[in-house]
């Protein structure tokens, strides 16, 4: 398997066959099931998929922020060449904040409601960088200014509930940036925000990333969000990567039917966020008992018998750096034939409800 950025000497972070399972009374939920990628400094990777496809779990799993109980993590995660895949909280704490940081999905719940904004920013500075209180205060002020918060000195003394949603997300970005991380996870950073604010926050993340030469992993359900911002895109479905390519390549010649479906379902401005993707019928498979073949097959308009029996591997075909896992890819003669055959047979896009 070649990585998308084979040219680089050593990636900032490299994942190989990362798995994250949850023990539940129903059985083992395979939330992330064998994901590999690598990312260089200064680059952005977009991870795209429906809710529940494992993308948010993946970023929390990489950072090691999942609870220990009932979670089984596997595979290898190398951060700057250092293996951290199985590292516990004590080891990872050195990395948290000043090496990798995360911007959470919902600024309403991710800020401590009973702690002043200023203290929430300065505490990681004081703790991680061992700076004086005054210096931390000064830095926090600069951070708030740089993330575009007006009247920063007044905001420092306020509580989260006194700020608007967009403002809180800016605060969260300031917190994440405080110790100058090399890798920033942005987990659906705009989902909880008003449409008008979404673009501002994404632009802010973009600008900060460029300025600081950070690597960024941008997790979203919206292909439109990553279209202009990510260098590479990984599309996830049911805990697995189904297509991986540089952004330009992906949009020019997408191969996986799921990617195609996602593109068709880019939410319109007037839709509420987190609306079900109308274009894709059916629902994601049960992650306790995933289908034997391709996991998308039950919902795939291209699906053939082979898809239901044999899981396609994630490999690159014609273009180097463009990997996908499909037997009948979109835009190929096989794919076209398969689709035509299904349409002729009148098989609806949803073959099964998922159970």
């Amino acid at each position, binding site marked *: 398997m070649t990585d998308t950025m084979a040219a680089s000497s050593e990636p900032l972070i490299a994942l190989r066959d990362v798995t994250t399972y949850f023990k539940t009374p129903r059985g083992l939920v395979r*939330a992330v099931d064998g994901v590999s990628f690598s990312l260089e400094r200064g680059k952005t990777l977009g991870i795209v998929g429906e809710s529940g496809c494992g993308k948010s779990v993946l970023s929390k799993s990489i950072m090691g922020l999942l609870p220990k109980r009932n979670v089984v993590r596997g595979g290898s995660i190398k951060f700057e060449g250092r293996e951290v895949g199985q590292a516990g909280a004590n080891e990872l704490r050195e990395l948290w904040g000043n090496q990798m940081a995360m911007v959470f999905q919902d600024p309403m719940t991710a800020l401590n409601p009973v702690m002043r904004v200023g203290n929430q920013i300065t505490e990681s500075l004081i703790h991680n960088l061992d700076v004086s209180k005054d210096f931390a205060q000064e830095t926090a002020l600069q951070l708030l200014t740089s993330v575009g918060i007006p009247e920063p000195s007044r905001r420092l003394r306020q509580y989260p509930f006194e700020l608007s949603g967009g403002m809180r997300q800016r605060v969260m970005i300031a917190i994440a940036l405080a110790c100058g991380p090399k890798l920033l996870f942005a987990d659906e950073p705009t989902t909880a925000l008003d449409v008008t604010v979404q673009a501002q926050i994404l632009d802010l993340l973009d600008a900060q990333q460029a300025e600081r030469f950070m690597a960024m992993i941008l997790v979203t359900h919206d292909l439109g969000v990553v279209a202009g911002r990510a260098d590479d895109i990984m599309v996830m479905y049911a805990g697995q990567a189904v297509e991986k390519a540089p952004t330009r390549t992906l949009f020019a010649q997408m191969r996986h039917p799921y990617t195609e479906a996602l593109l068709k379902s880019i939410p319109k401005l007037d839709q509420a966020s987190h609306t079900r993707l109308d274009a894709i019928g059916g629902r994601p498979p049960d992650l306790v008992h995933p289908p034997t073949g391709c996991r998308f097959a039950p919902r795939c308009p291209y699906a053939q018998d082979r898809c239901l029996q044999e899981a396609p591997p994630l490999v690159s075909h014609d273009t180097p750096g463009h990997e996908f896992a499909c037997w009948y890819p979109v835009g190929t003669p096989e794919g076209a034939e398969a689709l035509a055959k299904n349409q002729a047979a009148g098989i609806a896009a949803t073959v099964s409800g998922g159970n």
Partner: protein
Amino acid sequence: MSVSGAIAPNIQLGAKIKVEKEKRKRLGITGTISAVWLALIGLSALLAPWLPIPSPKQAYIDLVQPDGNAPFSTSGHVLGLDGGGHDMLAQTIHGARVSLQIAFGAVMFGMVVGGFLGLSAGFFKGKVDRFISTLFDIFLAVPALILAMSLVAFLSGSSAQSGFLSIERIMMLALGIVATPPLGRIARASTLTWSEREFVMAARAQGAKNFKIMFIEILPNVLPAMMSIALLSVGVVVVAEGGLSLLGVGVNFTDKPSWGNMIALYAQTDLQLHPWLVFTPIIAVFLTVLSLNNLGDIIRARFDAKETTL
């Protein structure tokens, strides 16, 4: 609701689901033991006069040594005798009769009065609610035991001459009044949520009478929430009876032994030399309260689970 979204919370709450599932199983070992103890003590209290035990007033004075030292265990007296030669097993069982009678009576009073007031407050809202809630607040403004104590003191003072109410009835009434506001508040809160439900709306739309809706539609749904609090309240009242006895109000030992007055009496006379006389009723109280709390917890867990799945 989005099905795909539903998977994520399931994953994070894996641990929690497991706990709930465990609780939803039957009573479990501790629950069974609790139920057995309560059944045992309840039945023996109920059937005390017909059990093959001596009367609590029967004094085996010849078995007591001249220094007041009674054997802890002797043939025919499993739990020994007190300084007056009374059989401790008989006293404890007859004590249960009095203590549990007061506890059940008081909680029944609280259930009926509190249930009615709470149901009315939650159902009619507005002025009725404000009046009843203020009433509850007033009674809750005095620490429960102090309120019970003053009520018993005054009521027994007033009943002393007239003999209108026996002391047990007075205890029941006083502790019942104390138990009313908490039970009433639960009933009120529960009624507030249930009266907004579709089936209640439907009954209303069909022109059902207020009282019919209250008692046929809402009451059966409010009762489970009240039941778990009621079970805990029985325990609280059993303890309160003990506390009141220690404060010198309550059933008189020479009239009828109760767990409370046994503890109070023996704590004064026998703690130094015959501590088991004190500990026997204490253990009875402890086991009963423990069992009630345990069952209350189990019911509440089951009830909560039911509510969240609705």
